[in-house]
């Protein structure tokens, strides 16, 4: 992980870990998820490159992790007992970078350099360049096994730190996911939580067309994981699921979060075309308007 230089004060409010999930907090995080989507939209539109669909589906989940659940400190990015996030579906990193910037790891303005030559914000996460990134991603499938290693290291050091892993649902096609799942269960890693962004779409089609994933809960259960199923755009459900995972004993937990790829923009939702598509000027304006409307619905 790169060191946190050019640090700016966090622009966005953090709800301390453990505090109760007030209606205000839930509304605030929900609203910000839409604002962060708009930010991602601008980045991809600006650079004419990037992955919108899977970034939009994971917005609320990352909001909950970075602004409440995870004990991290941008001022001490290398703090050994920080919680870890492995963002395994690395193509959606425009949303991850947006979270990191708003959490205070680097200036929000730097988001504009996404995917540009000489930028710290690479096309896929690169820990040596970007403060706050724990593991490289891009090639799919690594998250669970890397998370296992992090969780084992925490256990060896008797640290209470937790490891979170975010997967795509198409990513579950990849065998190394299931290798990692077996290892996690063998070692009973209850300090490891995996979240599947279950948006039903992979790159070139729906999971139903390309590689069916159902029965997804039964798969993880048969690999000896505790399974929680939630709506992945419902902040209250996300927060509760993360708490439940936190209290689990003796088993790793997977949260299957039902989401919508391209969430928040009518013409992007559930469409494989927006996995890696770049909007035209007109589409950009329309999408922005929809996202602003989405944010407004959560405003006080």
């Amino acid at each position, binding site marked *: 992980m790169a060191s946190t230089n050019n640090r700016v004060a966090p622009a966005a409010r953090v709800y301390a870990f453990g505090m109760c999930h007030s209606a205000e907090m839930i509304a605030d995080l929900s609203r910000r998820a839409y604002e962060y989507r708009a930010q991602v939209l601008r980045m991809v539109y600006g*650079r004419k490159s990037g992955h919108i669909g899977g970034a939009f589906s994971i917005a609320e989940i990352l909001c909950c992790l970075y602004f409440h659940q995870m004990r991290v400190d941008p001022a001490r990015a290398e703090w050994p007992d920080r919680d870890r996030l492995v963002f395994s579906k690395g193509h959606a990193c425009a949303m991850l970078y947006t979270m990191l910037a708003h959490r205070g790891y680097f200036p929000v303005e730097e988001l504009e350099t996404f*995917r540009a030559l000489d930028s710290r914000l690479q096309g896929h996460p690169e820990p040596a360049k970007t403060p706050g990134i724990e593991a490289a991603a891009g090639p799919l499938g690594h998250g669970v096994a890397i998370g296992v290693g992090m969780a084992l290291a925490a256990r060896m050091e008797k640290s209470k730190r937790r490891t979170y892993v975010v997967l795509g649902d198409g*990513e579950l096609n990849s065998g190394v996911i299931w290798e990692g799942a077996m290892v996690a269960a063998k070692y009973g890693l209850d300090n490891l939580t995996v979240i599947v962004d279950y948006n039903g779409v992979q790159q070139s089609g729906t999971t139903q067309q*390309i590689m069916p994933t159902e029965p997804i809960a039964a798969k993880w259960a048969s690999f000896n994981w505790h399974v929680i199923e939630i709506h992945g755009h419902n902040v209250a459900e996300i927060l509760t699921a993360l708490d439940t995972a936190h209290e689990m004993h003796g088993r790793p937990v997977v949260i299957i979060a039902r989401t919508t790829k391209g969430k928040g923009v009518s013409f992007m939702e559930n469409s494989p075309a927006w996995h890696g598509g770049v909007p035209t000027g007109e589409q950009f304006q329309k999408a922005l308007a929809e996202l602003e409307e989405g944010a407004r619905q959560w405003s006080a």
Partner: protein
Amino acid sequence: MERLILNPSPGVTLMRKAYGEALVELGHAREDVVVLSADVQSSDFSCMFEAAFPERFINVGIAEPALVDVAVGLANGGKVPIANTFGFLFATRALEMVRTHLAFSGANVKLAAAYAGLSDSFDGPTHQTIADLAILRSLPNMAVVVPADARAVRRLLPQVAAWNGPVYFRLCRNELPDIFGEDYQPEIGKAVMLMPGQDATIIACGVMVGIALEAARRLAQEGIHARVVEIHTIKPLDTEMVVHCARETGALVTAEEHSIVGGLGGAVAECLGESYPVPLERVGVRDTFTESGPYEDLLRKYGLSSDAIVDATRRAMARKPSAAPIEVQSMCG
């Protein structure tokens, strides 16, 4: 050589589109061809084959090891499977399958390696492929073929399918200048002399062929006559041509969209060492990962430019025993 190379290049063609079209044509010509993808057919344009021959198209999802193994099973049944995904995934994620069943067992599977070199430029170093030639070339029995423009793709793909054994066919994601004319008739395993010259030889593959021609034209303006040779088949290497050029020109430069370690430059270095040692300069990525950005910018920043070839040619020539003695810094590493 008018109709061998086009000067100036009349335009550019999206290589993956040329590939998709050639694949469909191949599908019409050969009923035994089966195409496989690992959920990136919209990227590499093998989706064009899917549209034309849905019953001969198989999508295994995001599972590259299975992609290759399923192809191996199809080959056992007499099919000619063409497996498609990003080059780096064949060269790394699925490499054991490639080694065990293609290289070792000889399964007649063709790997169409999309997005190779730096051509998946914005996705960055995890998706780029600067070691695939070195890796695939290290496997006995693999053929490794690198087309340089759209015409080359069209003319080489049927040969890839007809080749008796496994082939790694390395493709670029982007638009490339059309460089070859009507008379370009590549044959797997045979180098192609594109431009004559006696002062040095520039050996290039892929996107670097056009850039090498540009470099040679610039050198010609200074009175330096560099020969340009295309080696589209990295393995089996046309060692006869390499030795021939070493004898006749006394100094070699290789140019590839790949690390300087182990690829075309490595193959030529090995050949020269065992046959006819002359000064060799390798133009390529200097054993480092690169970054995200526009393709052209990356090529330039990482030394894959006509400037770099011109400089390398001068350096190689200066190192000929006959040349005036100058101190040349070692750049190997």
